[in-house]
């Protein structure tokens, strides 16, 4: 990809504008998933119910981890912008690591639920919960892969300040996925 920004009618970078459009599209995707969860809330004809099974302290920790990853992301972008290679790598790796921690806790949560008898087949709660949080988890996984790619590019010496836009767009994605989690956490875990 060319590093030199193209001249555009609005002055906005094409990739950034395109990515904002993608985020707009994703809002409708998660909006539909979350609406469905809300519509089906409390309509399962059999257990386990959310009250019986959700581990709020654990998920609060993983939520905190994900929120901290956003902070690391901001610091990574700041580092790459000022051309600081060491801290670029540290913060990129930290963001990816926090993301992986979140995914690990989600994997633990999912397996625990399955052991306690909640699968995608069990009831409406199982179907809506696993598809909603699973879709979000898949987004986090893609983000981790993307961050690790940036990390490798930095190790190769190909992530100078002129490529800050790449990290900025990764950041847009990462923060968006984070914000979606705040909504999901509120709707699924806190709303009773």
């Amino acid at each position, binding site marked *: 990809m*060319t590093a030199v920004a193209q001249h555009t*009618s609005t002055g906005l970078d094409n990739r950034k504008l395109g990515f904002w459009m993608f985020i707009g*599209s994703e809002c*409708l995707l998660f909006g539909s998933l979350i609406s469905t969860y809300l519509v*089906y809330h409390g309509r399962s004809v059999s257990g386990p119910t959310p009250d019986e099974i959700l581990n709020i302290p654990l998920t609060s920790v993983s939520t905190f981890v994900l929120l901290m990853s956003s902070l690391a992301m901001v610091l990574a972008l700041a580092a790459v912008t000022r051309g600081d290679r060491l801290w670029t790598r540290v913060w990129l790796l930290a963001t990816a690591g926090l993301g992986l921690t979140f995914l690990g806790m989600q994997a633990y949560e999912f397996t625990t639920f399955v052991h306690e008898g909640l699968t995608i087949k069990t*009831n409406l709660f199982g179907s809506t919960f696993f598809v909603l949080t699973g879709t979000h988890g898949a987004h986090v996984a893609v983000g981790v892969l993307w961050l690790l790619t940036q990390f490798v590019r930095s190790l190769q010496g190909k992530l100078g300040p002129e490529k800050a836009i790449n990290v900025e767009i990764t950041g847009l994605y990462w923060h968006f996925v984070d914000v979606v989690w705040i909504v999901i956490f509120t709707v699924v875990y806190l709303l009773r």
Partner: protein
Amino acid sequence: MTTPVMGHAPTRASWGSRVWSWVTTTDHKRIGVLYFVTAFSFFLIGGLEALLIRLQLSHSGNTLVSAQTYNELFTMHGTTMVFLAVMPLSAAFFNYVVPLQIGARDVAFPRLNAFSYWVFVLGGLFLNASFLVGAAPNAGWFGYANLTSSQYSPGLHIDFWVIGLQVLGIASIAAGINFIVTIVNLRAPGMRLMRMPVFTWMTLVTQFIIVTAFPVITVALVFLMFDRFFGANFYSVAAGGDVLLWQHLFWLFGHPEVYILILPAMGMISEVIPTFSRKPLFGYAVVVYSGMLIGVLGWGVWAHHMFAVGLGPIAESVFSATTMLIAIPTGVKIFNWIATMWGGRIRFTTSMLFAVGFIAMFIVGGLSGVMHSSPPADLQQTDTYFVVAHFHYVLFGGAMMGIFAGIYYWWPKVTGRLLSEGIGKTHFWLTFVGANLAFFPMHFIGLLGMPRRIYTYDPALGLDTLNLVSTIGAFIMGTGMLVFVFNAIWSRKRGVPAGDNPWGAATLEWAVSSPPPVYNFSVIPEVRSRIPIWVENGMTPVPAVPPEPVHVPPGSYWPLVAATGIIIAAVGAILKTLLVVLGGGAVLVVAIYAWALEPFEI
């Protein structure tokens, strides 16, 4: 890579390298041509399905096809015409015309554009491959739950549909993002938003609808996929699920989809009518704002597809009102087109005939649409042929007539040769008479009580004559399509060379040669008017020969590889083999990395 290039690829190149240059192309014009040829082929397939449907219904108690085959025919007819014909035919014009109209050298993301095309063509082939294994989708293009559940639809029929539509959605969303960025960001100097041609405007509105509406159907399809493949309960009544969830999600997408189909055609005739009336479009700003209003209001009318499910008086009143409301901006546009013609120097070329045909037939379809907005009336019409008459008037009489107007209008720009006006007018009259003969009797057939989607009917209904008339009309339309195909082939060899601006049109695409050079504009012009060619000093001149070498992006095969990865995964889902799905995913990931890392300067 900086190449001074003249015109299209050299014709003396070997056959293999010519094919390769098309496979790897990232040129928006070539991708537009690919979209057109592919989508028109699917249009003919969908048309054949329609003719089989009409043959089966030509008289009562017919046994030409079985009830099962009939279900597959109307499902694939609808799905094909919506997703594989009308949408990509519009996309062909977005690709070819929009960058030229705004004074750009290509779209914002040329490789993403190629990717959209390859996902579309492979997705379309995937969907139609269901015929080869004898399991074509058979639950209607709207696939109502819980008819689509494993219990009521065993076998691969619905699997093909649920996977195929998700794949096609990827193509549409990717193209949508690409064209929004192109139109917002790549306009020539002076091409302010309110100077953009109306076709570009309607393209922009359409892309916003695509980008926001397709995720909704994707979610509905994902739920259905989880229900069918993994035993989830989204549409399972026994588990407390609500089958209306599908209807809400589907029509929340489905009604904006209607505007995805019609707005581009409205944009096309907004170019055709001013050109052949030799007058600027009457009330340009109002037409643009009406288009935007339709795009917004289109989101608030979905439940009028569901009046028969019993939503309650308040919901029904609200959706009835919004549905009547959306008729206003639509009506405004019709008056603007008529006012444009008023007092103009009208030339009834084939393109203009199709544009006027659009107005006439769209008014009929629009009026029956307003009739549906009243819940008590709608209850009498739901699931009858009256509804079939309505949406064929707006989608064939509207969208397809508009697209044909666009085809005759831009054909000389694309090929450098005119289509025959004589053959074209034969095509128009066969189409216009055939369509009205086919679709108008359906109003009566429906009101007299014939339901949709039933493979035959009783002679006692007394509908044999009307149905036969409709079938005859369909075959007249079919003949019209053959005449068009003949015209297209004829024009390639014997069409009159067109010159830059055969119609004396006003917009930027007519300021360059026909076909345009690979770089579009030797020098990006500065635009000073909404109708730059018609007014004095409306734009800076575009020299025939570039004063300095023009950079042209190279091709890439990674978009095709990425699309292939998606299709491999889709096939794996049909085979229910995880290894194949993962293999497809791996191909996709490799292609994305190669794509991101290959040197590609735009």
